[in-house]
C-alpha cells in the first residue's frame, strides 16, 4: 500500500500552539515535498488535530486517527503528559510515533517503546547542555526557579547533578505553581541568594514572565545570569530583545546557523500562517518526517510500525537542519546541541536575528548515554 497518513497531534489552541501547532503541519508538508516520494507514486497526507493539552483527548484522537483515518505515524505532540499517553496507544496499534515537540526523557527511558523515535530536545539534553556549559564557563553557583510539577522537578534535578559534577554548587531553589503570573517573590529570593546563575526550570508563559520580571527587578543588570532551561525562538520574539538579551540556554536548532538552515527557514516562514521562523520543535517535525519517509520507502509499506522504526534505526539520519546522526536502540535521535546567548538589541541586525552561538555540544555528549538508560529495549 503506497498511502501514508501523517497525524500531527498537537496543541493548536493553547500554550504550545506557537512552538508546534499548525507550523508542525507546515514542516511535515515540506518534508513530504523534499522526500520526492509523491513523484514516485506515493500518496501522503497530513492531518492535524488539537489535543488541547489533555492526555485523554490526545489518546482518543490518536486512536481515532489510526483506526479511522489510517494514520501511520504521529508526530510532534508537545506536552509530555499527552506524549506519554499517545506513545502507549501508538505502541498498542503498532504504528510510529515521532515526538519532536515533547521534552520528557522518559519517552526514551522507562517509557520507551519499539515504536517511538524521539527527535529534537529532551530534559536530559537541556539540563546537561545548559548546566554543563554555563558551569564550565564560570557560572559556579546556581539558584533554581522551578515549576512545581514533574517536568520542572526533573529539569532541576538533572541540572543540579550536572552543575555538581562540573564543580559548581546549588545555593537553593524555589518551587512555584504552574502558570504563575507574578514571579517577583521568587525572584527576590533568587536575587537575595547572590547566586551567579538563576536557572529557570519551567516552560512557556512561566518562563517568559520570570524573565520579564527579572529584568524589571534589575536582576540581569545586577550581574546575575538567567538561564532558562527550555526556551523557544517564538518566546524570545514575544519578549523582545530588550528583555531577553543575555539569556543563555540550550537549543538543538537555530534557523540562522548555516546556508542550509537559512534556506529552509525562509521557505518555512513564507508558508507559516503566522510568518514565524521555525522553532526547534518544528524543525524536528521536518527532520523526523523526512527520515521516516526514507525508511518507509525502504520497507515499502508503512503498516508495520515496529518494522519501519527498526529501519529508521538502521538508516543513518541526514538532513539540512540537524546534520548527520543516528537513531539509537532506545529511540533517541542523536545530533549536536548548542548553547546560545540572546543578542542585545544593538547586536541584532535584521528580523529574527536573535542568537549567538556560545558552545557546541557534540552529538555523542548531548544526550543521555545508553549506559545510564532505564529503557527496557537497551540490553545491558
Amino acid at each position: 500500500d503506497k498511502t501514508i497518513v501523517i497525524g500531527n497531534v498537537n496543541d493548536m489552541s493553547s500554550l504550545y500552539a506557537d512552538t508546534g501547532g499548525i507550523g508542525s503541519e507546515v514542516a511535515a508538508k515540506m518534508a513530504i515535498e523534499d522526500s520526492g516520494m509523491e513523484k514516485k507514486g506515493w500518496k501522503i497526507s497530513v492531518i492535524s488535530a488539537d489535543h488541547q493539552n489533555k492526555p485523554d483527548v490526545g489518546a482518543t484522537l490518536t486512536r481515532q486517527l489510526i483506526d479511522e483515518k489510517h494514520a501511520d505515524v504521529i508526530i510532534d505532540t508537545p506536552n509530555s503528559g499527552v506524549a506519554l499517553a499517545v506513545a502507549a496507544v501508538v505502541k498498542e496499534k503498532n504504528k510510529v510515533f515521532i515526538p519532536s515537540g515533547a521534552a520528557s526523557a522518559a519517552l526514551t527511558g522507562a517509557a520507551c517503546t519499539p515504536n517511538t523515535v524521539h527527535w529534537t530536545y529532551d530534559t536530559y539534553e537541556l539540563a546537561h547542555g545548559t548546566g554543563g556549559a554555563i558551569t564550565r564557563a564560570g557560572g559556579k553557583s546556581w539558584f533554581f526557579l522551578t515549576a512545581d510539577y514533574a517536568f520542572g522537578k526533573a529539569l532541576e534535578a538533572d541540572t543540579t547533578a550536572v552543575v555538581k559534577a562540573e564543580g559548581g554548587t546549588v545555593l537553593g531553589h524555589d518551587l512555584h505553581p504552574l502558570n504563575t503570573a507574578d514571579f517577583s517573590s521568587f525572584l527576590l529570593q533568587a536575587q537575595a541568594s547572590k547566586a551567579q546563575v538563576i536557572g529557570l526550570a519551567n516552560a512557556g508563559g512561566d518562563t517568559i514572565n520570570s524573565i520579564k520580571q527579572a529584568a524589571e527587578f534589575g536582576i540581569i543588570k545586577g550581574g546575575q545570569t538567567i538561564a532558562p532551561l527550555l526556551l523557544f525562538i517564538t518566546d524570545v520574539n514575544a519578549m523582545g530583545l530588550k528583555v531577553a538579551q543575555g539569556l543563555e540556554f540550550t537549543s538543538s536548532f537555530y534557523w540562522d546557523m548555516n546556508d542550509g538552515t537559512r534556506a529552509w527557514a525562509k521557505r518555512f516562514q513564507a508558508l507559516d500562517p503566522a510568518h514565524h521562523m521555525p522553532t526547534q520543535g518544528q524543525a524536528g517535525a521536518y527532520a523526523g518526517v523526512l527520515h521516516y519517509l526514507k525508511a518507509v520507502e525502504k520497507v515499502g509499506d508503512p503498516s508495520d510500525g515496529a518494522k519501519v522504526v527498526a529501519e529508521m534505526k538502521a538508516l543513518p539520519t541526514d538532513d539540512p537542519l540537524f546534520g548527520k546522526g543516528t537513531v539509537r536502540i532506545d529511540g533517541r535521535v542523536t545530533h549536536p546541541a548548542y548553547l546560545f546567548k540572546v543578542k542585545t538589541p544593538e547586536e541584532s541586525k535584521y528580523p529574527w536575528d536573535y542568537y549567538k552561538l556560545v558552545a557546541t555540544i557534540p552529538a555523542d555528549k548531548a544526550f543521555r548515554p545508553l549506559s545510564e538508560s532505564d529503557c527496557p529495549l537497551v540490553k545491558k
Partner: protein
Amino acid sequence: MPTIFGMPPQVLFGQLSLGLINGSFYALLSLGLAVIFGMLNIVNFAHGAVYMMGAFCAYFLLNGIDLPIPWWMAGHFSLMNIHFGSHLSFWWALLLAPIIVGAIGMFLQRVLIARIAGLDHIYGLLLTFGLAAILQGLFQNQFGSSGLPYEIPDGLSGGHNLGFMFLPNYRAFVVGASIVVCFATWFVIERTKLGSYLRAATENPSLVRAFGINVPLMITLTYGFGVALAAFAGVLAAPIYQVRPLMGADLIIVVFAVVVIGGMGSILGSIVTGFGLGIVEGLTKVYYPQASGIVVFVIMAIVLLIKPTGLFGRAA
C-alpha cells in the same frame, strides 16, 4: 541575624510589599466584579477576558493594529493583514483603553446580557462564560498564545533600593493608581445617591424605573464601568506580565475567590480583601511556596464555613 518565623525581616518586608502589589490587581479586578455583581446580579465570567482586552488595547494603541482580511478572501495559508498605525503612549492607554473596552462592554451588555435580566443568576454566569470563551478564542486565533511584549513606560523604569528590597518604580505606581481608583469607586457607590439607585435597581429594576430613573441606561453604564475597571487593570498589567490572550483566564478564578471571601457585591469587601489576600499570598510564597496558588481557595473554604456571606457580605 534576627528572624521572624525563620525568615529575615528584610525578606518578609519585601514579600509583604510584593503582596501589596499583587493585591492591587486583585482589588481592581474584584472591585469591577463586585460592582457588576452588586448591580446587575451577574457573575461576570468574562472579566478575565476583559482584563486581557485592556492589555491588548494598550498594545494596539502603542503599536497600531493589524486587522486581518478574512481567510475566505485571502486563502487559507496566507493571512494578510492591514495595518492601522498608532503610537499612543502608556499614559494615553491608561486613559483610552478603559474607555474603549468599557464601550465594547456596554455594547455586549446591551445586545446580549440585557436579554437575561431578571433570570436566575446562573444564566448570567453561563452567558459570560461563553463570552469569555469566544473572546479568548478569537484573540488566540489572531495573536497566538505566547503573547506580545509591552515595555515599562519610560518615566517609570528603574527603581529604588528600599534597603530590604529593590522596588521597581513601576510597581510602586501600580499600587498608588489602584488605591486611588478603588477609593474613588467606593466613594461614588457607597456615599452618593447613585449608589442607592444602583443597589435598589438590583433588587427591583422595574419599580426603580417607575420612580423615574432610567434603569437600563444606568445598568449599561454600570457594566461599562465595571468592565473599564478590569481594562484599567489590564493596562497596568501589560508592562509587568506578557500581553497574552489567556492572561486573564486563570487569574479570574482567583479573583472570584477574592470576591466570595469579601462578600459578593460588597464594594469595600472586595477592595480590602483584594489587598489583604495579595499580602497573604505573598507570605505563603515565603513559608510554603507550593501552596501559594491555592491559599486563596483554602481561605475561601474556611470563610464560607464560618461566615457564609463572606467577610463583608450582608445577609441575604
